[in-house]
């Protein structure tokens, strides 16, 4: 689904979302009971590379919302091929730009903004750690692709045979591409299908803003250890 | 990866001690964890190694080590990432350096 179809599905015509470069942004309006709820939408499209500019532009949009519209929910729409692999971006401190975006999202949450992440196309590697994965909860469309690396490339880097990787990936969600794996591990709260607007409304109605992903991973059986380890450490 | 298990008799008892860890599971290196063991008259070796097919060499290395130290009531656990026997022996010697032996019985 491209971003235009997505925002229609989410908001109908009630939005001002536009694209600037690879960044999409604007406001959207949802009818919640009798009231109209305005939502700030920030995201990327066209499998955006997350370089310093893209990270900074998204951070500015989040900060603008926090500065000017206290409490307005923020929806982060994710479509990225990962961080930009250029020496120049590293020279400028890409990790700082990206972390800044993550800090802005986190600040928005602390300031009372609901933050919903949605992977609607692809989310590769580090590209969405500081956006969608920093939301209160991150969701995905079933047809979206989430991965760190494809198995052939992973096989080359780890020197583990592709056959072994492939056969293990059938039962273990820990390394292979796929949104279902991320759901099983708790990184994705759930998949949205059918009435996407309703899915969004349901997400906004979920009162939880704390990070429950290790618990989800344990409950769903995709990440058996993380929750237990976290608790063992806290209780130490 | 290969998992190897050896239980070798020994006769030098040790005092109670805290677990000792030396080394790192890095390329060509290994970690050795020495803990009080369950067998009062022998030392157990439990080895995970990335290099498959070197069981005979491992056996020779730990037997040589045990022949020198005669540990009993001790468990040695190893995670290995392709260390040479030279490195393995060095780590074992480093690990055992802080094990508090009771006075070696005259033998």
């Amino acid at each position: 689904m491209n971003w235009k179809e997505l925002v229609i599905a989410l908001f109908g015509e009630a939005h001002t979302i536009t694209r600037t470069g690879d960044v999409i942004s604007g406001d959207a309006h949802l009818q919640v009971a009798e009231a109209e709820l305005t939502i700030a939408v920030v995201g990327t499209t066209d499998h955006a590379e997350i370089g310093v500019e893209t990270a900074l532009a998204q951070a500015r949009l989040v900060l603008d919302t926090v500065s000017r519209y206290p409490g307005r929910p923020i929806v982060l729409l994710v479509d990225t091929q990962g961080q930009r692999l250029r020496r120049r971006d590293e020279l400028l401190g890409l990790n700082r730009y990206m972390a800044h975006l993550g800090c802005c999202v986190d600040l928005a949450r602390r300031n009372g903004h609901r933050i919903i992440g949605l992977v609607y196309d692809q989310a590769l590697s580090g590209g969405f750690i500081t956006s969608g994965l920093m939301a209160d909860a991150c969701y995905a469309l079933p047809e979206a692709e989430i991965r760190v690396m494809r198995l052939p490339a992973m096989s080359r880097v780890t020197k583990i045979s592709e056959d072994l990787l492939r056969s293990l990936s059938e039962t273990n969600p820990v390394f292979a591409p796929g949104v279902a794996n991320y759901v099983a591990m708790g990184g994705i709260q759930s998949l949205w299908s059918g009435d996407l607007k309703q899915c969004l409304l349901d997400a906004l109605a979920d009162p939880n803003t704390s990070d429950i992903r290790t618990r989800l991973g344990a409950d769903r059986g995709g990440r058996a250890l993380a929750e237990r380890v976290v608790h063992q450490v806290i209780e130490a | 990866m290969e998992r190897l298990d050896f239980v070798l008799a020994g006769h030098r008892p040790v005092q109670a001690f805290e677990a000792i860890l030396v080394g790192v599971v890095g390329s060509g290196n290994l970690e050795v964890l020495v803990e009080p063991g369950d067998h009062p008259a022998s030392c157990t070796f439990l080895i995970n190694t990335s290099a498959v097919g070197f069981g005979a060499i491992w056996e020779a290395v730990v037997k040589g080590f045990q022949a020198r130290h005669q540990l009993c009531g001790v468990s040695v656990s190893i995670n290995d990432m392709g260390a040479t026997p030279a490195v393995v022996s060095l780590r074992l010697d480093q690990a055992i350096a802080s094990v508090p032996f009771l006075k070696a019985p005259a033998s």
Partner: protein
Amino acid sequence: MINALSYAELNARQRVEHLLDPGSFTEILGPSARVVSPHLALLGVPYAFDDGVVIGTGLMHDQPVLIAAQEGRFMGGGVGEVHGAKLVGLMRLALKVRPMAVFVLAESGGVRLHEANAGLIAVSEVMRAVLDVRAAGIPVVMLIGGANGCFGGMGLIARCADHVVMSDQARMSMSGPEVIESSRGVEEFDSRDRALVWRTTGGKHRFLMGDCDLLVEDDMGAFRQVAASLLGCSQKLNLQGLLDEQRVLTERLENTGQCNDAGEIWRRLGVEHPERVADMDVEQLQALKASQILGAS
């Protein structure tokens, strides 16, 4: 002639021992607990008893602190399920026990490929947990001085902390040079040109740019001294702080976004002889940064 005790030379466990007050460290989920990665064995790769990260409590100058140290030699310090959960747990523990600081001795290539999905999620969990600790007024201090640097997800986590301390041998960035080279070719980034790699990602560049707050020699004593000076030094994030950061990063892009080499950037920052930077020691570099009105922060 050479450092009495090189930080880079030591392993994670030794760094912890030498950073804290002698004998004060108590490890949480230490090697005997055998909380290991269940995934590595399935892939035929040996695990480590601590999954490559040492965590625990200790004292620094008699003040209670929490500490984590990544082992860069094991899986490149990569963050997997257990490794990440230990870091998350430590941050949550900080909220409970309120130490004078949480020290993270980062040395990592980022996400551990063998458990990539768990690692990716864990990195964002650690980021959120770090920001929770920071918001609670407990300083999180990143210490970076290992030979493997601090890359990928750990580079992101580092920049969420209150303070970043680096040695001039350390590196911090997002993608490693080898990754960029294999993706874009050697013309884009020659990963074997170490001088170029360090000029682009090394401690000196990060210090001149303001991406790390403090630069130290590769010396355990220097790290300890600086770490102690940061006890209780919380820098809470607020809107104004992030607006300032936005301005700094925007100006950086405007002023130096066209530069293709660190030397050009340094010159624009007011460094008169960029070619001399590489051979300067830490003290000279600190003097240089103090003496220039540098555009970075």
